[in-house]
């Protein structure tokens, strides 16, 4: 085989003189080079848009940079100020963690519940799938956030309904708790994408498991916890990790709904919003870069923890018949 391949290469070299030395390389090397070429656009993009800016951001985090004059080296000052003097930093962490701990479970539970409901064979299940997925299609965009603000605003849709019914208006955006609650609701409302992933996971569970369980006399609830959940656990794990990371970084809804201020009283000051304020409103890009690296470490740690605990509950497919 090798011999024939080599001879065909030599023949090809005559027909494609531009190939130069490539034609004389082994086919394995040729494959490798082709492979690298295929992924080179991605690599170039990754390097220029992710690695290089990250390196620059790390560099900036040790400087004082107001964007109008050149950066000044300050060493670890940004970090020390962040951890010792910045009460808004603590507040933004509180807000972000509260958001993550409420939005992610809410979203995933809703997604799973709806997926279970739709999973039943019914003529309308196709339509339901589309309907429930629609909110996520619109995405975490500016338009949706503005719409949400108009629904829950002081003179918005809900209050309009209340006043027509003769009830007192509820000022959702006046209290820290309810304002953050509105943000959590927005995240939960976009459960569609997670739902579809769960749905495909559910469809992959062989029916035989359920039939066998029924024959053994297991009730629906027992079936759920002993068959459905373990089978879904890899997908559940995937969703948890992805949603957690995404929720830590949430920005658009908080920015739009609070008008960039994190109000009321910094109740919606999610971490990225605070970074944005420090960078662009207060001209402190170096400090903001330090903050960005801190959240990277935090998210990395949380993800590591999730992975570490995963072996206790995530059902691994390997080794199963």
């Amino acid at each position: 085989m090798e011999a024939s391949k080599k001879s065909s290469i030599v023949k090809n070299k005559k027909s494609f003189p531009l190939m130069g030395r490539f034609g004389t390389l082994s086919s394995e090397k040729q494959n490798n080079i082709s492979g690298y070429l295929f992924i080179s656009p991605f690599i170039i993009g990754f390097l220029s848009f992710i690695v290089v800016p990250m390196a620059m951001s790390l560099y900036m985090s040790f400087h004082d940079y107001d964007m109008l004059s050149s950066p000044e080296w300050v060493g670890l000052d940004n970090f020390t100020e962040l951890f010792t003097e910045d009460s808004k930093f603590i507040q933004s962490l509180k807000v972000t963690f509260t958001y993550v701990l409420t939005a992610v479970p809410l979203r995933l539970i809703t997604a799973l519940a709806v997926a279970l409901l739709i999973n039943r064979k019914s003529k309308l299940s196709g339509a339901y799938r589309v309907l429930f997925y629609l909110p996520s299609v619109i995405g975490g965009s500016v338009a949706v956030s503005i719409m949400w603000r108009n629904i829950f605003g002081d003179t918005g849709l809900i209050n309009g309904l209340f006043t027509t019914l003769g009830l007192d208006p509820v000022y959702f955006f006046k209290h820290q708790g309810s304002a953050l609650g509105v943000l959590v609701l927005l995240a939960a409302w976009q459960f569609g994408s997670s739902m579809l992933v769960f749905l495909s996971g559910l469809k992959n569970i062989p029916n035989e498991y359920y039939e066998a369980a029924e024959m053994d006399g297991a009730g629906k609830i027992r079936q759920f916890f002993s068959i459905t959940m373990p089978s879904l656990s890899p997908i559940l794990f995937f969703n948890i990790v992805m949603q957690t990371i995404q929720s830590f970084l949430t920005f658009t809804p908080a920015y739009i709904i609070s008008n960039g201020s994190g109000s009321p009283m910094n109740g919606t000051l999610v971490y990225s919003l605070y970074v944005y304020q420090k960078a662009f409103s207060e001209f402190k890009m170096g400090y903001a870069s330090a903050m960005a690296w801190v959240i990277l470490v935090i998210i990395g740690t949380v993800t590591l923890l999730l992975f570490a605990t995963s072996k206790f509950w995530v059902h691994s497919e390997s080794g199963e018949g």
Partner: protein
Amino acid sequence: MKKFFMATSLVATMLTLAACGSSNSEEASSTAAAGDEKVTLTFSWWGGELRHNSTQEAVELYEELNPNVDIQVEYSSWDDYWKKLATKSASGDLPDVMQMDLQYISQYGLKNQLSDLSEFAVKGGAIDTTYTDESLIEGSKIGDELFGFPISKNALSMLTNTSALADTGVTIDYENWDFEDWKQVVSDVHEKTGKYGMVDVGDIAILFSYYLRTEGESLYTYDDEGNPSLNYTDENFTAFFETMQGLVAEGAMPTPEVVKNVKSFDENPFSLGESALMQTWTNQYNLYNDATEDDLSLDLVYGANNENNPLSYRQAMFYSIAETSEYKEEAADFIDWIVNSTEAADILGTERGISTNSQVVEHLSANMTEIEKETADYLTDIADVVGDPEAVPPLGYTEINTLLNDMYSEVAYGEKDVKSFSDEFRVKAEEVLADNY
């Protein structure tokens, strides 16, 4: 072999696409030209719909009159404007002509982002000052450098929603009222109608600075070397903020986030008849009249006639030229036209405030609406009682301003007492000033 070709052609296509994409989205900034060849200026401003439309019209007229000049415009709302400008500054890409505000002029000017216009801004110069109020130009300088040309002036005033006020039966003696009287009025209005007595403008520093001036103090002062320091006493700080805290607690004034959440003039409680008073700049009188059907009047702020001359003319806004601009002369010519010419004035009106050019003001007065006349008259009427213009806010002003507003929020929500506010603010503000000077 096939794979190799596929791979290379794929890479080549992607790189070409990427290159095409980026060159399309590049701003066609000033291309190197000489003499009469095409000059491209970038011009940016903040404002509302009205300003966007009228300014674009003016720009088009200028392009007609000067066919070799092409002006690319960029406009946005107040909030977004400063974020964009900061990023542009970082990339060395500031617009040739940009609208500038007192709050930021030190920041951009002292960090060499703005061109010194002192040579242009003289009588008969590139930006003609023959009809411009000299004191405003002097008051705009930082040291000897003029980083922005003041294009309009305004002053603080008390806008009154006379319909809302009439319902309360409360009367105000605008000529003679002082801070205590004002506090009483705000309280009474709320007591009688449950509505706000006064709505603030969202930046408590404005109201606080004015109050300090009525007491003969000010927020900042500069020494001979141009170093700023805080210039108020703790007593006055406490007196003002305790009053504010009380009024907010009563419900006579809104909590800070109410105004922060207002996106347009028609949504403001003042426009909706939910507040009797609003202490704000005279050039907003026009905008609020457009936003509401109620009757409004333009009146004196409390203490206006007292011996400390608290009212002052303020440079409503400037036009600045980027230090990195390749067309400073042409930019100066454009500024001259748009500020001093009557053709521009006819299109722009008094939307940016009453012009600093007295000839323009006269020219426009023939066609001014009732509201605009009232505004112009107010400014001329207070000429006898105005004090010195306020000092240009120092470097680090935005940080100090954020501190003041944040801490005021905490006080307004009852999470901090005024004494701690006073002590903490003073310490932190002085730190910021020390950092910058």
